[in-house]
Each structure stands twice: as C-alpha cells, then as structure tokens.
C-alpha cells in the first residue's frame, strides 16, 4: 500500500494543543476546587474532612486527566507504522489500568480511620464534574482545522 502523504510530513495529530490546554486548565480548576472543598471539609468535619476533601479532589482530577495524558503520550508515536495499534493500546490500556488502581484505592481508603468517607465522596463528585466542565469549555472554544493533517506536496520546480 502506498502512502499518499510525503515522507517528511509531520503526522502529529492536530488534537495535541487542545488536550494540552485541557490539562493545563484542569490543573487550574483543580486548585480552585481543592481550596473550596478543603475549606468546606474542614468546616464540616475538621481535620479529617480537610484531608478527605484534598484526597477526593486529587483522585478525581488525576484520574480524569489520565485520558488526555494518555492520548498525548500515544500521539508521540504518530509517525510509527503501527500507530493505530499503539494509540489504542496506550489509551485503552491506560483506561483499564486507571480503573484497577481506582478500585484498589477506593477499597483501601474506605476503612481508613483518618478519613471521612462522605466528604471524600462529595469532593470526588465535585472534582469529576469540575473536570467535565473544563473539558467541555476547552473543546467548545477550540479551533481545529478541518483537514490540517494533510500536507500537500511541494509544487514542482524547474531545475
């Protein structure tokens, strides 16, 4: 099978800037949610609530961010011949691994005496929703050229 695109073309998908922006804004909003949930947790459940709120928000933001990070990582192999396989291997493998780690964390943290499970759950839900809001806003404001992955060959020149 012949490849229509010239060999020297940069095949990095155009989604990279959007994903990077989403990760950056996700980090900013995570800091805001961390402060708010930390204060609320401390007011309602003392030091236990503060620690629970911080852990819950961090879990939500980190685990939601892993998808974008895995796509960014996988896009580094864009020029590889087996890109499709590597891409979905990394993205879906990362997804599976993330959920295994999440379930193990939930089981381990549930009976920890230094945590307040209710505050942890609520701050986790808040972190997940905040992360979704950031994702939607970034995608809604993003501009991705329609066919930018195509590089046209240079015009022929007279030697």
């Amino acid at each position, binding site marked *: 099978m012949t490849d229509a695109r010239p060999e020297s073309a940069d095949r990095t*998908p*155009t*989604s*990279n800037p*959007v*994903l990077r922006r*989403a990760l950056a804004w996700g980090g900013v909003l995570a800091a805001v949610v961390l402060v708010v949930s930390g204060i609320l947790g401390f007011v309602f459940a003392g030091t236990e609530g503060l620690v629970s709120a911080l852990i819950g928000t961090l879990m*939500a933001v980190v*685990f*939601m961010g892993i*998808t*974008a990070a895995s*796509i960014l990582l996988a*896009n580094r192999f864009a020029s590889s011949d087996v890109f*499709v396989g590597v891409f*979905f291997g990394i*993205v*879906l493998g990362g*997804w599976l691994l993330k*959920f295994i780690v*999440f*379930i193990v964390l*939930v*089981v381990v*943290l*549930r009976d920890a005496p230094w945590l307040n*499970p*209710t505050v*942890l*759950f609520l701050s*986790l*839900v808040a972190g*997940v*929703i905040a*992360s*979704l809001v950031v*994702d*939607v806003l970034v*995608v809604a404001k*993003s501009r*991705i050229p*329609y*066919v*930018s*992955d*195509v590089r046209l060959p240079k015009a022929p020149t007279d030697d």
Partner: protein
Amino acid sequence: MDATTVLAEINGNIATVGYGLAAIGPAIGVGIVVGKTIEGVARQPELAGRLQVLMWIGIAFTEALAFIGIATYFIFV
C-alpha cells in the same frame, strides 16, 4: 429446595451488584466511542485530530459515571 430457600441463602451487600453495573456500563460506552472513532478515522484519516478530541470528550463523560458509581462504595454501608 424451593425458590424462597435459595433466595434466603444469598447473603452479602446488594450494593456490590451496583459496582459491577458501574463497570459494565462505561465499558460498553467506551467500547462504542472508541469503535466509532476507529471507523471514522478509517473512512477519513485526515480527520484523526478532530476525531481524537471528540473521542476524548466522549470517554470523559462516560468514565465520569463510572467513577461516581464505584466511589459510592464510600457512602453505602
């Protein structure tokens, strides 16, 4: 052994079934999202960048429910 006796033998927390459901639902959802993305990229490879972003936002929404569903383990006794 009649049905009532069999049912009475089942013990444990019924919420456990919910964690299984919280895993099945998003697994099917992400499977559909990724499968359709592969289909789209196979039809129009030059759209890979756009489709990746759409796939990512689809996965984010699908997995959000999984996180919340599994995290209910914290509040269900």
